């Protein structure tokens, strides 16, 4: 039995008499310490899937198992790094992380330990220097780092990343991807990431799950990326596994499952 299992999940949104089927029979298994990405065109329901794992949305059928126990409500064991950082603007960087630390470790850590743990996690994402700044005073990439620190500080069983690099410029994105890779390498986190970026998916993941287009999106293909770690961005450009993996993803996304808009454009 796998560590995290998304088990035959269906999701249908009902608004009045209108029903929209978003996900159909989605099953994904993630082993402990694995980095799994879910890739698909925008609007295919991959964010809905992540919200179901996070417990923020309830599936219509099926369920999510973590260590063989069903999880159907949100909790810090499945910490989320949100696409738009979701830092609380009235709190400093430190207090944003500290809020999570205080809540999760209220019973198990003392005041001093929580303070030290907060700083440790900020240092981990190289944001210790900005701990007294407010979110609006730091750049988008920095906000995302703080969001990551907040999630890591909860010591989640599974780290859920909802297109965490989507809103960043290419250089910042590359930096942050490297940071995430290094952190995952050293801490051994189990990660489930949503993305629409082919390079990102191949670079970071052990396994890439490809989703078909909605409505009623399903798992199309699963690709194992059998490359060793640590992975170096520059060296990978010529790596045959990297090139082949990338090729397969591109083929799936753009040849077999183009978005309706793209098809209409031709």
């Amino acid at each position, binding site marked *: 039995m796998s560590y995290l299992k998304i088990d035959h999940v269906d999701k249908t949104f009902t608004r009045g008499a209108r029903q929209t089927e978003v996900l159909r029979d989605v099953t994904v298994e993630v082993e402990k310490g694995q980095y799994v990405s879910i890739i698909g065109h925008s609007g295919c329901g991959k964010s809905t899937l992540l919200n179901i794992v*996070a*417990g*923020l949305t309830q599936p219509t059928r099926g369920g999510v198992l973590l260590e063989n126990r069903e999880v159907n409500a*949100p*909790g*810090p064991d*499945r*910490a*989320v790094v*949100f696409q*738009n950082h*979701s830092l*609380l*603007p*009235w*709190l400093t960087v430190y207090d944003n992380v500290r*809020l*999570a630390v205080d*809540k*999760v470790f209220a019973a198990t850590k003392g005041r001093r330990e929580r303070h030290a743990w907060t700083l440790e996690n900020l240092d981990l994402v190289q944001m210790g220097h900005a701990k007294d700044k*407010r*979110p*609006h005073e730091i750049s988008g990439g920095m906000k995302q780092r703080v969001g990551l620190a907040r999630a890591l500080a*909860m010591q989640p069983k599974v780290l859920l990343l909802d297109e965490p690099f989507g809103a960043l410029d290419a250089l910042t994105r590359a930096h942050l991807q490297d940071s995430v890779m290094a952190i995952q390498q050293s801490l051994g986190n189990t990660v489930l990431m949503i993305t629409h970026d082919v390079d990102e998916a191949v670079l970071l993941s052990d396994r890439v799950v490809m989703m078909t287009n909605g409505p009623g999106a399903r798992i199309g293909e699963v690709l194992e990326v059998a490359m060793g770690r640590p992975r170096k961005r520059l060296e990978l450009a010529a790596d045959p596994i990297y090139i082949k993996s990338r090729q397969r993803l591109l083929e799936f996304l753009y040849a077999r499952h183009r978005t309706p808009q793209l098809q209409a454009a031709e």
Partner: protein
Amino acid sequence: MNQMVRKVGPAPARPQPRAAVIAALPIKATPRASRALAALADLAARVIPPALVLALLLLVWELSCARKGASLPPPSRVLADTWELIVDPFFDRGGIDKGLFWHLSASLQRVALGYALAAAVGVALGTLIGQSVWALRGLDPIFQVLRTVPPLAWLPLSLAAFRDGQPSAIFVIFITAIWPIIINTAVGIRNIPQDYRNVAAVLRLNAGEFFTKIMIPSAAPYIFTGLRIGIGLSWLAIVAAEMLIGGVGIGFFIWDAWNSSHISEIILALTYVGSIGFILDRLVALTASIVTRGTAAN
């Protein structure tokens, strides 16, 4: 400094620091002086136009009321008539024959009480109807009707209920100030971004923590908008209410002056009412800008 000089060598080094000092003085002095000058110009730009307009208005008033038999006194007469009240606001000859300070402070106390109650109840009710769809559906139509009732229309009813002027006046303030506070709080609560709710859900914040750590800070700009409208309305309502209930208070002072045909005293009282209303508004605005620094900046 010395090391630097030695490194360069004695001959060319000596004139250098001297030149530096000479050059540094004006450079250092200039920004400070120009900054002070700029601040002064900025202040002047804000003070001079209203002062000019005020002087012009007073002049027009003076000229138009200067002729004999004018129904209103010119500003010079107002000043002469009320000089005693202006210089001694603290006298107390018993009853309602008190200095303006006592009248104003009595009014302010009523407003403080009624407004504090309205703020507490208004934020609580606003939170309720912002959070719960059923509370919104049940209460909102009633609120929408009640909030259009003019403040003074509540006075006879509250007099009948409380059988006393003091609590009636406080109730009128309360019922006047509460509607904008309720409505703005409710809008603020309803507008809490889903992201913050998600964060709270992942952290498993309980209801109390959610209220203090997410709801109140997130809705604070809206709540303060309501509070600011509320304080203005309370101050508007107190003068009218006091005219009717009598006793010590700036409203009754004005009514009493009218009954004794002391038009100058009315004009003086109006200036005080206006200034205090302005100060109250600014106080709430200042509190808001301090409290919502984080949120408003976003």
